[in-house]
């Protein structure tokens, strides 16, 4: 099996606010990210597809096809958008790196028909990224925290 990875970049704005929290709680939990005017990032998305190369083409998946899927599913939806207001798949969710990566996984998985979606890695900055992979859901077995959560 071979894994191939395609990278795209998009720019978008967002802010973090949970309407169930008080303004003070929102500021305490989300810090600067709670600024209601929003702020932006240059996101880098790496999408990895795993599979056996087609013996006729030598390809797992034509990169042009993957590029077109990423354009349609991700770039057209998110590039130069406000993630809180303009991406219906994120409605009602805090647009964190984790949630955006999970939405991108859900958008891409049914569209990858040659090979299998193996990993979605979303960089919010060079110092922070979320990985979404196939495998058992978080919160069960190996994904569970090893001690009780302390976060509010």
């Amino acid at each position, binding site marked *: 099996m071979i894994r191939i990875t395609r990278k795209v970049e998009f720019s978008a704005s967002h802010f973090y606010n949970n309407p169930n929290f008080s303004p003070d709680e929102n500021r305490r939990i989300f810090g600067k990210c709670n600024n209601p005017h929003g702020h932006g990032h240059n996101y880098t998305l790496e999408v990895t597809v795993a599979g056996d190369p087609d013996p006729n083409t030598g390809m797992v998946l034509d990169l042009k096809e993957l590029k077109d899927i990423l354009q349609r599913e991700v770039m057209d939806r998110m590039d130069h958008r406000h993630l809180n207001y303009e991406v219906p798949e994120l409605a009602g969710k805090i647009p964190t790196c984790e949630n955006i990566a999970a939405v991108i996984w859900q958008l891409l998985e049914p569209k990858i028909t040659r090979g299998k979606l193996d990993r979605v890695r979303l960089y919010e900055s060079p110092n*922070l990224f979320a990985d979404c992979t196939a*495998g058992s859901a978080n919160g069960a077995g190996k994904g569970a925290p090893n001690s009780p959560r302390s976060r509010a």
Partner: protein
Amino acid sequence: MKLSLTRRYDFAASHRLHAPQLSEQENQRIYGKCNNPYGHGHNYALEVTVTGPVDPATGMIANLGELDPFVERQVLAAFDQKNLNEEVAAFRTAVPTTENVCREIFRRLQSFPAARLERVRIEETSKNSFEIGAEEFA
């Protein structure tokens, strides 16, 4: 579908690779330039990966407002701008190779209360990287 979050940190430290149970000649043969008695330094990049459920109220596996100060307290305060052999207790006995630094940092971070530590990865230089996962540490 499984999610993880990775945060990258930097620290600068010096070290010397020297195993006291080996002769001077053996140390020089095995560790080469890294055995220089005065030590040398690196700009290390540290990647810390955590997993766990995404809290629906915050959208987060771990709040960086908690992870950053934890890593600062447990690792960076003890390692940044330090001599690892002289100033980090674990390396009074273990040779501070980046394999051993990975293991020591994993040990210091595994008690993070808000999510499960999945991996520690260190770039000693832009050409060398080392990593340890929760399964290997256990």
